[in-house]
């Protein structure tokens, strides 16, 4: 029994230590951030890597999430004779909840793992150490542009995801089930407020900070072995997913 308690305490203290290290890591990145925006070429490269290279998966998933919402939404709403509200229901759900959350989960799986494994491999092949010896701070040259690139890309990807998803809902609801096109769009335009759009983008930004931070932190602190890089990549996905859902609850509670 004592051994079990000891193990739990040890595991808790290790987790707390890691959270502390993550907070210090974030603090350092924020401190360095103003300088990061000055190196435009590096930043654009990383926005392209994290954002443009995730577009295909984000757009494909967005389309199918929208189409599923169209099917489910229509089935539900037609039971109560409100199928014309399909557009507004889907738009609000996507803007306030599904859009940022699903985008963050996809982002963690595509861009997050790429970031963690890239930085982890740089550590394993001594590239980070070599840079450090050349008096080039790897935090400034490697980690910061990737973090900022992810943070800037996430709200943009969220906007793309939501737009494509709404198109998917429209495709099924209007084109397939014959919901009135005018009702679909006018109800949406009447009910959706600026605050709903803001909520989606704020969530996208916060999830972007969280997912990018976790990815670069795990990559930077990975063990310099093949197994270490693999573990860092796995942890990136798992921790990002859990953190996204916890943050989603907190942000929803604050903004509702």
């Amino acid at each position, binding site marked *: 029994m004592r051994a079990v308690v000891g193990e739990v305490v040890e595991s808790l203290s290790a987790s707390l230590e890691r959270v502390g290290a993550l907070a210090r890591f974030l603090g350092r990145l924020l401190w360095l951030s103003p300088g990061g925006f000055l190196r435009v070429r590096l930043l654009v490269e990383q926005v392209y890597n994290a954002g443009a290279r995730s577009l295909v998966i984000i757009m494909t998933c967005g389309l199918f999430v929208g189409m599923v919402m169209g099917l489910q939404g229509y089935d539900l709403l037609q039971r109560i004779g409100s199928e014309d509200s399909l557009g507004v229901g889907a738009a609000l759900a996507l803007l306030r909840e599904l859009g940022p959350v699903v985008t963050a989960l996809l982002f963690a799986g595509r861009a997050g793992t790429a970031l963690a494994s890239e930085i982890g491999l*740089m550590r394993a*092949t*001594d*590239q980070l*150490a*070599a840079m*450090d*010896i*050349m*008096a*080039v*701070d790897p935090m400034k*040259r490697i980690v910061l542009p990737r973090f900022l690139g992810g943070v800037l890309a996430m709200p943009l990807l969220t906007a793309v995801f939501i737009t494509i998803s709404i198109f998917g809902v429209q495709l099924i609801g209007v084109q397939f089930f014959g919901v009135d096109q005018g009702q679909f769009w006018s109800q949406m335009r009447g009910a959706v407020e600026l605050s709903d759009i803001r909520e989606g983008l704020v969530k996208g930004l916060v999830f972007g900070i969280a997912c990018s931070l976790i990815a670069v932190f795990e990559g930077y602190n990975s063990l310099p072995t093949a197994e270490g890089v693999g573990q860092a990549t796995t942890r990136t996905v798992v921790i990002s997913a859990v953190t996204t859902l916890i943050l989603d609850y907190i942000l929803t509670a604050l903004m509702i």
Partner: protein
Amino acid sequence: MPTEPADGVPSAAGHDHVADLRGVHYSVDGKPVLIGLDIGICRGAITAIMGPSGTGKTTLLRLITGQVLADAGEVIVDGRDVARLGRRDLYALRRRMGMLFQNGALMTDIDVFENVAFPLREHTRLPERLVRSIVLTKLHAVGLRGAARLMPQQLSGGMARRVALARAIVMDPEILIYDEPFAGLDPISMGVVMRLIRSLNDALGISSIVVTHDVREISQIADQSYILSGGRVVASGSPKELHDHPSPIVKQFMEGQADGPVPFHYPAPDYREQLIGEERRA
């Protein structure tokens, strides 16, 4: 006797030392790696650090470059105590050093030219024409001017190490550190790297520190050598002095004997007892 520069550290013997380790202790997870190590690296010379695997040779390099700090003792590089330097001063010191990693540590997403140009682009605002000239000069010095536009993945092990060497000298360092420069190279590449270490040291007037296992190769170019074992210096001197050294451990290392003071077998229970005991239990 060599002239002593303002920030030089004279050793007890009167040589001008570019780096000095005095009574250095270093341990990892409570396990001692270096125990009271005393080493002086002569300015303008090639210093070889040799010894069996796991004796703390690479740790010694990491101490000199300030990647790790000693638990006790002093690491003085160019007259400055590395442990007392802040990040800015440490980076200023590192700009005067170059290091060749065992695997080259080239950045895999940029080509050979950009790898060599990397320190220049990060630390200077030289016009592109000048950067190009410097990079091509350094690549020419290692015989790889023609490989400037190849990617690191297209290079052989020996070529990658030569590119890394060009990168290490692109800022004209005063100290050049080599971590196992001959490991895994074919005899031709080994000869090329060996001659490069000697010629760069003489042509650029730098101080070279070479960590290696390759006794025969390093003996041909080193001016002074240290042999480490068990975290201590067990012998030092010129390659010839080391060859004639009476210590059994130095003899074992220099002659490449499999068994000796450094045992072939990792500590284990009695062989017969272990085999029979296991059979009985089965």
